[in-house]
C-alpha cells in the first residue's frame, strides 16, 4: 500500500497534479520518510532509554494513532477532529515537539490556564508515551510490564528498593500483576 502511494506521488510529480487522488493522500507524509528506529532517552533516569522500532510499529498502528493530526492523515480521535479533521502535514511530527518533557515548569502550567486552548488537557511527554503505548499494547498483546520496555538503572533500583537495594525480608520479587 505504501509503495502504491509512493508510486502515485511520483506519478503526480510528473503529471503536475492532474489526478483524482484525494488531497489528504497527497499531503500525507510517507511512512518511508520516517526513521527506522528512534532512541527515546529524553527522560531516561530510573530506567534505561528505549530503542523504539518505528518501522515495526507502522505495521500495528496507522500514523494518526500516534501522530494525531500532524502527518497529514485524517485524524482518528473525534475530539482532535473538531479542529484538525483535514489538517496539512506539520513541520513538527515528533512526540516531544508537542508533549513537553517538563510538564510542571511554571511556563507550561501557565499555558494550561488559557481556556481558549483545547489542548488544556494535553499530557506531557512521559504521559504521552505511556498512555498511548500501554493502551495499545494491552490490545495487541505487546509488552506492558515496566522492565519489558526499559530495564531499571541503578538509580531506579534505589528508588524502588529492589535488586541490590531490596529490603532484607523481601528478596523474592513477584513482578506479575
Amino acid at each position, binding site marked *: 500500500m505504501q509503495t502504491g502511494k509512493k508510486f502515485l506521488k511520483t506519478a503526480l510529480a510528473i503529471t503536475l497534479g492532474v489526478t483524482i487522488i484525494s488531497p489528504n493522500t497527497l499531503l500525507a507524509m510517507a511512512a518511508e520518510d520516517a526513521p527506522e528506529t528512534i532512541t527515546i532517552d529524553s527522560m531516561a533516569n530510573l530506567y534505561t532509554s528505549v530503542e523504539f522500532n518505528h518501522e515495526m510499529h507502522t505495521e500495528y498502528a496507522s500514523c494518526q494513532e500516534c501522530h494525531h493530526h500532524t502527518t497529514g492523515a485524517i485524524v482518528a480521535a473525534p475530539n482532535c477532529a473538531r479542529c484538525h479533521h483535514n489538517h496539512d502535514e506539520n513541520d513538527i511530527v515528533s512526540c516531544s515537539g508537542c508533549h513537553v518533557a517538563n510538564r510542571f515548569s511554571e511556563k507550561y502550567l501557565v499555558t494550561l490556564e488559557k481556556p481558549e486552548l483545547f489542548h488544556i*488537557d494535553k499530557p506531557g511527554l512521559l*504521559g504521552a508515551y505511556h498512555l498511548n503505548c*500501554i493502551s495499545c499494547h494491552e490490545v495487541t498483546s505487546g509488552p506492558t510490564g515496566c522492565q519489558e520496555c526499559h530495564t531499571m538503572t541503578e538509580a531506579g533500583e534505589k528508588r*524502588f*528498593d529492589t535488586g541490590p537495594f*531490596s529490603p532484607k525480608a523481601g528478596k523474592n520479587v513477584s513482578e506479575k500483576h
Partner: protein
Amino acid sequence: MKNLFSRRNFLKGGLASTAAVAVLKNKESDASGDFTGYPDGMGVLVDLTRCVGCRSCEAACNKEQSLPEPDKPFNDFSVFDELHHGQKRRPDEKSYTVVNRYDVPEIDHPLFRKIQCNHCQEPACLTSCFVNAYTKTPEGAVIYNVDVCVGCRTCMIACPFYIPAFKYSSAFDPSIMKCIFCYDTRLKEGKPPACVEACPQEALSFAKRTDCIEVGRQRIRQNPGKYVDHIYGEHEVGGTAWMYLSGVSFDKMGFDIHLPKEPILNFVKDFLAIVPMVLTIWPGLFVGFHLLATRKEENKKHTIEQNTDEKEEQV
C-alpha cells in the same frame, strides 16, 4: 462506617449535653461554616482509568518523605494480594500512600487506586483537633505540627477516609503520620508532589483545584461512556483537594459513596465551640466522674452482699 458515625455522634452528643454548649456558641464557628476553601488552592485529579498499578508513586513518596524501608520492594506486585485483618492495604506510619488493586467483574483487566490523604477543603482532622495541630494551607495542603500533638487520636476517628496514622515508637512523643502534599519540599514552591511527578500514566494531574474540576468535567464530556458522571471529591465532605474520575461506580473501587456533601465540620461544630471550655472543665469533670464511679462501686458492693443470699437460693 456506622461505628465511626455513632462514635462521632457520641462525641457530639455527649459533649453537647453538657451545660456549657448553650453559652458558648461563638461567632467564629458560624463563620467557618461558610468557608469553602482557599480560592487558589492546588489539587490533584486522579484518573482511575489510567492507573496501571506500577507503584511508582509509592516509591517516589517513600524517598521524598524519607520514610522507612518498605517490607517489600516497590516493584513487588504481590502486595496487591495482601489482606490485613481482611482489609486491603491502608496508608500507615511507614507509607503515606498505597496503591490497591480492584477486580471488577465487568472490566476485563484489574483496576488500581492510589490512596492517600485527600486534603479536604474543610478537614475533619483539623476541626476535631483540640490542640490545633492541623493547618489547611492556602496552597491546599493539610499539614500538622507534631510538636503540639498530644496523641489523643481524635483525628483518626474524625477523618472520613481513615487517613491519619500514628508513630507509636514513643508514647511521650506521639507523631501523626500522613501525606502532607509534599508541602515543605514542593507544594510551597508551586511544585507538584513527588508522586504526581513520578506517575508515568499521568493518572495524577496537578493543577489549581478549580482547574482540576474543569479538566475532570471535560474528560467526562469528551469521552462518552468512559467515565461515570461524577468527580469524587468535588462535593464529598465539603470538597477535597484530591479528586477522582472512575470508569466504574466508585463503591466498586472501595470509595465510601455515602459520605455527606457537607463538611464533617458541621457535625462537630458544636463540639468545636466548646473545646476551650472542655480544656478548663475537664479536670473537674473527671473528678466528678471518679467520685460517681467510686460511689457506684460502693453501692454495688452493698447490693452484691445483699443479693448473695437470694442468689444462693435461686441456684
